[in-house]
């Protein structure tokens, strides 16, 4: 992830976060190579307002429109997509459906996040899946922008059930699994190749960026739905005062469920045990781990 100097004006942080080669010191307007037409020193950003425009291709707007344009201009190579899908144990089709792509600026991986207005979801954040300190990739929301939901662009208001996962990878793995299964009349779960008959046909799957993040303005969208919360199996931890902090995943489900209680038709949670976690499973076990563990079982014939 590009390191952003603390001295940088906050309006420029979203641009630098996405790797724009912005020069902003000793110039009246910050300037960069336009990531949309590749013309050098043609993209200008106002250091006071954050308004930007390219003097050549004419694309312009504010920080939000910048990330929307960036997402629009970004794409992904098929081979790279296959590699990521293999590594993340989800199908490439699902990755693409969720908007997974590579940045048009520096080819880092991007995933769109959506805020909810009263009428429609809006792309208001663009997450970078980039290497953190330990070399492991993590998702980071665009600097200075609010936390948003993943997968809302796939939202179908007619579907009665909603699965809310902790993070988009879990949600993608769940979508992959639900799209390939259906309930039989005898109550058995069977594989299917018909998405119209699959479990996915009656449910929306969305993801929160973290187990403690749930905004009140998301509630109206979940009104009357059967909501299931699938957060991680986190172990309790000790804080700096050596006090025990309850398992984060279960605590998050508890808090979110309390908010949903009045709005949703029903709320279900992933039960990890009476203590809020399952000591038999490793710390941090999530939905994707649950769905992909021992994934060597012979696939039952699809009906």
């Amino acid at each position, binding site marked *: 992830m590009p390191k952003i100097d603390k001295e940088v*004006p*906050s*309006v420029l*942080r979203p641009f630098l976060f996405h790797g724009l080669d912005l020069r902003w010191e000793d110039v009246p307007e910050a300037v960069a190579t336009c990531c949309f037409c590749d013309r050098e020193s043609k993209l200008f950003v*106002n*250091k*006071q*307002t*954050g308004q930007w425009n390219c003097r050549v291709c004419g694309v312009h707007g504010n920080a939000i429109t910048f990330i929307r344009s960036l997402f629009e201009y970004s794409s992904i190579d098929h081979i790279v997509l296959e590699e990521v899908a293999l590594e993340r144990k989800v199908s490439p089709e699902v990755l693409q459906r969720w908007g997974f792509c590579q940045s048009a600026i520096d080819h880092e991986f991007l995933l769109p996040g959506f805020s909810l*207005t*009263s009428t429609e979801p809006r792309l208001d954040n663009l997450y970078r899946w980039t290497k953190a300190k330990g070399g492991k990739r993590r998702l980071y929301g665009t*600097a*200075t*922008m*609010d936390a948003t939901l993943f997968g809302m662009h796939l939202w179908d208001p007619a579907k009665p059930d909603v699965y809310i996962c902790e993070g988009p990878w879990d949600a993608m793995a769940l979508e992959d*699994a*639900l799209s*390939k*299964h259906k309930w039989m009349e005898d109550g058995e*779960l*069977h*594989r299917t190749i018909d998405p119209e008959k699959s479990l996915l046909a009656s449910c929306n799957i969305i993801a929160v960026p973290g187990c403690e993040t749930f*905004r*009140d*303005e998301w*509630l*109206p969208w979940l*009104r009357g739905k059967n909501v*299931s919360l*699938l957060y991680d199996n986190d172990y309790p931890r000790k804080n700096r005062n050596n006090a025990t902090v309850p398992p984060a995943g279960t605590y998050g489900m*508890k*808090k979110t*469920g*309390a908010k*949903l*209680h*009045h*709005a949703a038709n*029903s*709320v*279900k*949670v*992933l*039960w*990890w045990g009476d203590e809020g976690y399952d000591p038999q499973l490793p710390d941090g076990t999530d*939905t994707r781990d*649950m*769905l*992909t*563990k*021992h*994934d060597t*079982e012979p*696939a*039952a014939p699809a009906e």
Partner: protein
Amino acid sequence: MTQNLLHLLNRLVPYPQEWLENTKHKQNGHPTPPPIAALECNSWEDLVSTWKDAMYWTDALDITLSSMMAVVASTKLQGDQVWLRIIGRAGTAKTTLCEAFSANTEYTFSMSVQRGFHSGDSRGGDNSLFSRMADKTVIINEGDTLLTSPTCGQTLSEMRDLWSGQTRAVYRNGVSYEYHGLKTTFIIAGTSTLRRLNRSAAGDRFLDCIISDGDCVTKERQLVTDVLANSLSSMMTESNGELASREDPRLMLAKQKTAGYINYIRHNVSVLMQRLAANPAGIPPTFVKNCEAMGLLVANMRTRPTGGDEDKTEKELHIRLSKQLAKAALCTTLVMGKATVDSEVMRRMAHVAEDTSYGNSFEVVKALFGKAMDVRSLAVAIRKSEEITRKTLATLLELDIVRTDQSQAASGAQGRGKTVYRLSVQAQTLLTHLRRLLKEPTAATSK
């Protein structure tokens, strides 16, 4: 994968009830009691009867409850917004009603400390309250404190901005945030000091509802006796922090049902509105005329002198008021579960119009109704000094609400007759109209 998915789905259990009861939002290390859970309530009569069980219930409280509920119902409807000020003396159940509405956190947003709605551009992010207030009714239950707050001016100017549904914050560090299409209504409760929210400070956006002003002494005594008797049992019970033991169970039930009724109204407002529109007898032909008359009266009565001698007194245009009253009337009809905007609904609206008109001008107009009076006797009638009465009359003369006349000198007396004041024909008609609406059969309720 099938077994894994089955295993995962089998781990899904209904949200444990004990989690709900034990949820404590820690703030500064102090656990706060759990929120009040809404109870299903789909009937106005049921809601009112629960309130009657919980406390001494007056017609003024009934009107206040229906008006507050109408504000909540109107939140997402198109057109001018309906904002309400609840004014009452201390101990008139203003806060209790506001708390009951605040129990529904999905459709209301309760604010106690007012430091403006914009957050400032801290750490580069916008944490303003607008996103949390959108599509909700903001309840400010100690509105008096708003007036003493050092940021009162800022809060009020932001409220004025909100009226149009859009607001923007431009900070000196060059950052700006814009919000469009906000649908937010306000209910502010407080004592009569709230009236200081005058025209220049967003006061003209509000309709008023007065609780208990004008109640007779006997009623007041009865109220105190009943309240005291009711509270004796709860005085002897200690709260253990649990929801059930927090206060009188009957009052708790009323609050829970109020929260539930808000859910019902907000879920069904479009359907109920369509039903009302589809009913040929739903909106009587006199409805528009009545609302216009009430709006005109309130606009006249709320006009205050604008200052210097050269200034002409500016009267607000009555269109917005008429629209607000019409919208409030339609929403009150839905709230009360009625199929038509009947005389009871209009009586309630007339009360709101009367309460909104409150002031010296209205006192003068009421005193002059059907009479001619000189300044001295008018001052006695409205219990104000002659100076205040003269100033008020000057404004009313300028607005053509009163006119002057010369009374004949008494037989044998020398000199001219005294100057007397009468209502103009228009004002006389408007007040007659209002009185007729107020005299419609009441549904006054009491325990």
